[in-house]
């Protein structure tokens, strides 16, 4: 289970309190009735689905109820940062953006040393 930092409550809370809400920073076209079918499909259905760094929305549904954005690594599931809705993409902490999955006991043992 993930531990997620809500930028509004300013607390680390369990994933059970949160609802994932898809890719972040997708703006609804302002001229929605004028755009072509291709553009609508692009906006409505097509998603990046990155392996590695992803920007996504979460909602603290059993807490403050507010949406916020997060940067997360989809290979390790580690949250790199969370920030309030409406803010631009935030700079990431220095540590590597993408981590390899730890697949063997030997690999974790090496880290421990």
């Amino acid at each position: 289970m993930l531990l997620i930092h809500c930028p509004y409550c300013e607390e680390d809370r369990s994933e059970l309190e949160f609802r994932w809400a898809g890719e972040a920073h997708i703006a609804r076209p302002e001229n929605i009735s004028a755009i072509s079918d291709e553009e609508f499909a692009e906006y409505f259905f097509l998603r990046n689905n990155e392996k590695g760094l992803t920007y996504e929305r979460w909602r603290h549904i059993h807490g403050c109820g507010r949406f916020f954005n997060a940067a997360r690594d989809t290979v390790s599931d580690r949250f790199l940062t969370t920030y309030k809705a409406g803010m631009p993409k935030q700079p990431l902490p220095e540590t590597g953006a993408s981590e390899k999955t730890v697949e063997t006991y030997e690999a974790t043992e090496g880290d421990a040393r």
Partner: protein
Amino acid sequence: MRRYSVFAVAREAMRAHKGWEAQWASPEPRSAYDVIIVGAGGHGLGAAYYLAKEHGITNVAVIEKGWLGGGNTGRNTTIIRSNYLYEESMDIYEHSLKLWEGLSQDLNYNVMYSPRGVMMLSHNTHDMQSFKRHINANRLYGIDNEWLTPEQAKAYVPPLDIAKTARYPINGAALQRRGGTARHDAVAWGYARAASDRGVHIIQNCEVTGIRRGPNGEVLGVETSKGFIGAKKIGVSAAGHSSVVMEMAGVRVPLHSTPLQALVSEPLKPIFPCVVMSNTVHAYISQSDKGELVIGAGTDQYNSYSQTGGLQIITHTLDAICELFPIFRRVKMMRQWGGITDNTPDRSPIQGITPVPGLFVNCGWGTGGFKATPGSANLFAHLIAKGEPHRLAAGLTLDRFRTGRLIDEAAAAAVAH
């Protein structure tokens, strides 16, 4: 290829089993092929087999970054059924079910297809109405599916708790008797052996890192960890990694990849005669021929490629299993794992041409791709060979997200795959 038979077993018994040959070859890649299939799971290997068998295209390579059958083919809970609601879905899953029935003979490989029945439990009025709608739709389309009272369900599955005071009371069930299970590893191995016998190259431990394209946008081949390999046609059958591979050709697909977990118990004597699914409390269970209870959980809510999944998901599933089948409360769970499923917005698969000439895609099978393995592979081979979809898969195109002609199994059914 030496055929497997009772005589082969007897012959080998006489000479200390020294005459068995490798089931498939592991050749070095050629510089170019007519067709390259990315992903050696059941769907990819099967497509290569049907390309060779039904379309006479044998200059084919199946390229796999890990080992064959090591992805979702080896991670699913092996459930086979075809009781879907819409005609597009029924077409492809029923085509698949019919192929399952003769697959062991076709491949000369025992895939242990066992039509032991798939039962879906109804817990409330909504479930009952939804299942009866499915049953009627299926029967009108010539697919078996029937309604059982709680007592009839109990007679079919004795461990089921049908008490009115149960935590999740049962007011009936839908049963597809032709549904069942198969041995998932054997499906990959059987297709690999039969394809290799017909000249298909299976190249394992070779990761595709790019798709090279020509001046007119057409595919020229793939960049891999073993160098460039040319191809006139490329079929992508990469399950949870479909987005990653398609992105190499600049094609975005409407997928999100999430972990789906399963777990097995310690082996028990035969106690559970069929597959039971409950969509409402999200749990499904069957017993393998080894005796392990095979239990499927739900997906995690977020995108991930971690092949693990959260503990709360399987805890929730086991809560439900223990309520539905109190007899299993003290059974110990032995192993748990996750696979990465590629889910589409309408929860129906995508199989079709792409905007890139020579590039074909088979993805979006989400949480239910195993049952479709022979049918999907068979129709994907047709698509690659002919350049246009087979009649049975004509509705599964990538273009449906532009035209709006979705196949909305998820909303119509609330069906777990």
